[in-house]
């Protein structure tokens, strides 16, 4: 019984109504935050309040979120959201974090070392096999992309290899 209730609750959260409620709460918080900041009420020389457009935009977002709660399609569940699992969401966050890690790594040790490592890791994690192919593709793509950027006159960070590459 309890698991049935939990399932129903999870289904409701994925419906337009659930999405509407979450968005209404989030953007009402933002609306209050804007109203509490001093700049929002500041009048400029043209008699325009600095917070007019941000307030208007957030008010509109709350209004359209409320429509999602009450309109005739409130029980519809977006198909992609229906399929989304916690592990799926975490994979999405992980993909973004790993990408940031790649960028931070690249800034430190340079494009030519960080990129093959990133491509190798990402392609293998996504299921490309065997290892031999993964290594060849990762190295090849790094060299091709570096060459394209060099031809376009865009400098990529070289990190520790700086000064060792002639172009």
């Amino acid at each position: 019984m309890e698991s049935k209730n939990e399932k129903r609750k999870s289904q409701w959260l994925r419906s337009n109504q659930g999405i509407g409620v979450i968005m209404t709460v989030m953007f009402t918080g933002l609306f209050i935050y804007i109203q509490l900041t001093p700049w929002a009420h500041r009048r400029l020389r043209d008699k325009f309040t600095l917070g007019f457009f941000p307030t208007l935009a957030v008010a509109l977002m709350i209004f359209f979120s409320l429509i999602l709660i009450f309109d005739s399609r409130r029980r519809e569940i977006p198909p992609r959201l229906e399929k989304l699992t916690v592990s799926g969401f975490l994979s999405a966050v992980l993909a973004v974090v790993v990408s940031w890690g790649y960028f931070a790594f690249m800034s430190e040790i340079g494009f030519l070392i960080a990129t093959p490592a990133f491509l190798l890791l990402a392609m293998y994690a996504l299921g490309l096999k065997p290892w031999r192919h993964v290594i060849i593709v990762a190295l090849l793509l790094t060299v091709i992309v570096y060459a394209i950027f060099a031809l376009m006159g865009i400098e990529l960070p070289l990190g520790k290899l700086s000064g060792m590459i002639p172009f």
Partner: protein
Amino acid sequence: MFEGMFQPEAIVEAFHMVLSLKVLYWLVVGVVIGVGVGAMPGLTAATGVAIMVPLTFTMNTASALGLLIGLYKGAVYGGSISAISFSTPGTPEAAATVYDGYKLMQQGKGRKAILMALYASITGDTLSDLITIGVAPALALIALKFGPTERFWLVVLACTLLGTLSGAHPAKGMFSAALGIFLATIGTDPVGLVQRMTFGIWWLADGINLIPLMIGIFAISGMVEGAVELLRERGITKKAKESISAALLRGGPGLTFREYIRAWKEMLIGLFVGSFAGMLPGLGATVGAFLSYSVAKQVFPKKKIGTGVLEGVAAAESGNNATVGPTLIPLLAFGIPGSSTAALIGGALMIQGATPSPRMFELYPAVVYSLFMILLAGNVVNLGVGRVLGGLYSRLGRLPREILIPLIFMMAIIGSYSYQGNKYDVVVMLAFGLIGYGMRAVRIPDAPLVITFLITPMMEANLRRALLINRGDWLEALFHSPLAIGLCIACFALSFLAIRLEVSKRLSMAK
């Protein structure tokens, strides 16, 4: 007034800008990449253009336009290759091509179908470019007569259209448009240059940069989604690949001139429906293709469109490519992009210092004329590339997503970083990648967000200019002319009609 708009010396200057090997080179590169992007399922024209925009800052204006417009045209056509070859549209725009294209492939007429897609795309594209060249200056003339009040209402009307027509749910479309307005207010206000909505973060003082936002929304969000799907459905993908290999083994006879000419009525339908869909903010190439296809199917029931006939491919392909030029009309005439890709091209023009506005023809006539020339030249290049490399592209669809996704991630990261050398641009890009992924999951369309983000400073500046002119009188500032009142009524009437007639739901069902 017209004399001011038509500047022969600007046309000569535009010829000088365009007629160079460098521009031709980037145009060919753009089309070659574009057709490849289109042929690879999972990548769209917007993804390709978003990745390439930051790379254009080292180029001159004509080369940058050559690369991006070539890519756009190529990608819209390229989608048909995988749609016909293995029933998987390379881009959403090519989804309507699957119905007849894949059936022709199964009948052993795959080559015929791909050639019809190419010729119909080029026909629709070229003729719609001529419409663009004729209509954009005329609309720009009208736009010049608008004051700040009318311009404000015009932007509001565009936001309303975008919101109500994009996506399957008008409230979600409108939410996306409102989010775009909100994001555009972060940073420094466009008139008083005072900081607002920075949440105490110093690097937000200059606001959110358009380029990382667009790369995040259009490229990263799709790749995040692709990565999640790949991790979940690895087995299914492998099965699909096997069927692709089998389908590609089939070739077949080429297209005769008579077969091409026989589909002229369908191409004409595609031309007009596609051009209309392109001009109206919020509709775009996918709607253009599906509308053309359904109109042709209803008008010519005897041709049995949908059962594997060349006319079905012609209607869909002419319909989607006919949106490419007209989608730039609102951008050139009013400074309002008609689609996500037009917004990206608008962003590229901003990088080049030619910010799209209603005075585009007056301020940057050579840029506008060179854009027209590149639009037309792009079709010739697209025809050549499609004809010569068609077979090769049909194999590109087999490129594993396991390679494609990390590659796009890498390109997006170095693209958004190299644009200004600012690491916070990468943070913004990745954050919007995640936001875009969330929006895809809850089915909130991304185009209204990006387009309203681009046009909100114009909306705010015009409203405040109107207020200054009318000494702070809001009523006068908003409704001082019959045109302003008319535009305001149009906003409400159109949104009421769109919601009442469930236009967005119908359009999404047609897809």
